[in-house]
C-alpha cells in the first residue's frame, strides 16, 4: 500500500487558474464598473481577497490534504479543505474510469480521473499522467476479488 499525494505542480496549476480567473474578473470590472468608483473599489477589493484566499489557503490545503491509495480491495481517497473526507470505493464495484486532460494540464503532465461505480462516482483531480494511467489500468483490468 503506497499513499500517493498530489504533486507540487498540481498546486501551481490551480494557482495559475486562480490568477487567470482573478485577472479576467478584474479586467471585466474595470471595463464595466470603472465609472462607479465606490462599487468598483469594493468589487476589486473583494476579488483580491478571494484571490488571496484561494491562492494562500484553499488550494494549498486542498493539495496537502489530498491522498489516495489502494487498501484491502478498495480505492481510498482522503480529501477536503475545511471538512475532512475519506471516500472508500470497493474496486469490485467500479464500472469504468475516465481520464480527463484539459489544455492547461498538458504542460504540467497532469490528468484527472473520474471513477464510476454503480450508484456513485469519484473525482481525482490533477494526478500525474503516468499515475492516472496506471490507476485506470489497474482498476479496470484487475480480476474480481483479486
Amino acid at each position: 500500500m503506497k499513499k500517493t499525494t498530489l504533486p507540487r505542480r498540481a498546486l501551481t496549476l490551480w494557482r495559475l487558474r486562480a490568477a487567470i480567473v482573478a485577472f479576467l474578473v478584474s479586467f471585466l470590472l474595470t471595463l464595466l464598473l470603472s465609472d462607479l468608483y465606490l462599487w468598483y473599489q469594493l468589487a476589486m477589493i473583494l476579488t483580491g481577497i478571494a484571490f488571496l484566499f484561494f491562492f494562500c489557503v484553499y488550494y494549498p490545503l486542498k493539495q496537502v490534504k489530498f491522498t489516495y491509495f489502494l487498501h484491502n480491495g478498495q480505492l481510498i481517497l482522503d480529501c477536503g479543505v475545511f471538512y475532512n473526507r475519506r471516500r472508500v470505493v470497493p474496486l469490485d464495484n467500479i464500472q469504468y474510469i475516465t481520464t480527463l486532460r484539459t489544455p492547461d494540464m498538458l504542460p504540467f503532465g497532469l490528468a484527472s480521473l473520474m471513477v464510476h461505480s454503480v450508484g456513485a462516482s469519484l473525482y481525482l483531480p490533477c494526478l500525474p499522467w503516468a499515475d492516472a494511467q496506471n490507476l485506470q489500468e489497474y482498476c479496470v483490468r484487475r480480476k474480481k476479488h483479486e
Partner: protein
Amino acid sequence: MTERHTHPITLLQMIWRFLFLLIFPAARGFLTALSGGNVTEWLGGAWKDILIIVAILFLAFLQWWCLRYRWEPVGLSIRKGVLFRQRMFIPAAKIITMSLTRPFYLKPVGGVRLRVDTWAGASNSTDISLTLPRKAAEDILSKRESCLTHADFAPREYHPKGLYIACLSAILSSSFAGVLFFATFISQTGSLLGQEFADRITGTFERLTRTIAWGLPPATVALAYLIIFGWLYSFLRNLIRHKNFVLHRRKSEFMISSGIITNRSYSIRLSEINYIDIRQSLVTKLLGLYSVFINAVGYGKEKDDISAMIPANPWDRLQRHLHFLLPEFAVSPRQVKSNGGAIFRFILDPLIPTLTIPAAGAVLATLFPSWADFTYSIVWMAMIPCLWFLTVRFLDFFSSGVGRQGDMFTLRYSSGSQLHTVILPLARISQVVLRQSPIQAFDRRCDVFVYSTSEKKTQHHLRNLDLAQVMEIFGCNETNALPFPGWPKPLISLTEYLHPFSNYLRQWMPFWKKQNKNGTF
C-alpha cells in the same frame, strides 16, 4: 416458441402517437372558416380528412403488426419498427424484476402490462413495457418462476393481517399527495363542468368549515381539514393498493402480489436485492410496529408501485418472518454508536425552526394585532411538524449506529420523519464517505454516508460516530487506529487535523473481531 403480437389494445397507444396528424383536418376547417367558406365547401374536402384518419389508423396498425415478442428459456426478444427495424434481446439471467400490472381499464379486454427491468436503462422508467393478453403474460411469468424455483426448496408463503396492511397504508400516506389531488380536482372542475359548479364546491367547503370551526379562525380550520382529508385520501389509495398482499419465497425468487382495483404481481430475483429497509414512523414507533421494504431494481420504481415486503409487525414477529422469508438478511446489534455529547448534532436541524417559528409568530402578532389569532393558529400548526421532527431526531439519537455480522451491515439512522434500519450486504456498498467537520475533528468523530448500489443514487446518512470505529467496521483502517478511551481527549495536532484518517491515536483490536474468534457470531 413462435413470435407473438401484443394485445390489440396496444393499437390505442399507437394511435395516440399519430394523433398529431389531426392538426391538418383542424387547420383545414379553421382556414375554410377564416376565408369565409361555408359547410358545403368544407364537406367538399372532407375526403382529405377521412384520408388522414385512415392514415393514422393504418400507421398505428402497421406499428402494432410489426411489434412482436418471443419468450425463450434464455430470454425475451422483441422486434419492432416498420422502416427502422429494431431487434432487442434481454437475457433471462439479466432480468432482475418482472412484473404484471392489471389496471381496472384493461380488465374488461383481458389485457395485462408486462414490465421487465434490468440494471441497464433509465433509473426512472421501465426498461421494457408491453401490453399482452393475460394468459400469455402469466405464461411468461410462470416460466420465469419455474427457472428460479428448485425442487429441494420448499416454497414459503406470507399473508399479512388486514390490520397490518392498514398500518402500512398509514405509514405510507402523506397529506401532500392528497392536498395536491384536491387542489387539482377543484381547479379542474371549473374548466370541465363550468365555473358555477366549481364555485358551488368551494362555497360548500367554505360553509362547512365555518359551521365546524369551533371558535377557531375559518382559514386555519380550512387548512387543517384540507390536510386531514388529503391524508385520508392518500390512506385510502394505499389501502386499496396493498389489500390482498401475498408474498411467496422460492429458491431464488420473491413473488409479491397485491391490489384490488389494479392487481400487481412482482417477481424479484433474490440475488439482486440491494438491501432491505426496516422503517418506523413516530406513530409506529409508539405502537411498536415495523415495516420492511425491499430495494431492488424495478421494484417500487413507478409512482403507484408497491415496495413493501412485510407490511407492519411487532419486532419479535417481524424477526420471525424475516428469518422465515429472507434468512440471508439478518439484523446485527449496534456496535458503533454516537456518544452522549452528540445530541446537538442530532437535534440542531429541528431545533432551529422549533425556536424561531414561535418567536417570528410573536413578532408578527405584535406588529399586526388584528391578525394575532390567525398568526398564533398558524404557528401552532407549523409547530406540529417541527416537534414531530424533533422527536424523531431524539429517537434517532438513542438508536442510530452501525452493526456488522460477517459481510452484512446494519445501518440505523433517520431520514425525514422515518427511522430506518437498513440491512446492506458488503457487496452492495458502492461508496462510503466519512465526513468530519472542524468541530467533529476535536472530538475525533465523523458523519458517515453509505452509498448503496442502485439505479438511482441512494445515500444512508449516519451522524457523529467514532472515526476509528467507523474506519475499522468498514475495513478502511489502514493504520489500525484506535479510539481514545479516556476523557478529556488530547488536543489534536496539526498533522492529525490535516490527515485525521491516517494519523489517529493507537492500535487496537475491535470488539467484533474478538467476538468472531470466540465464535459468538
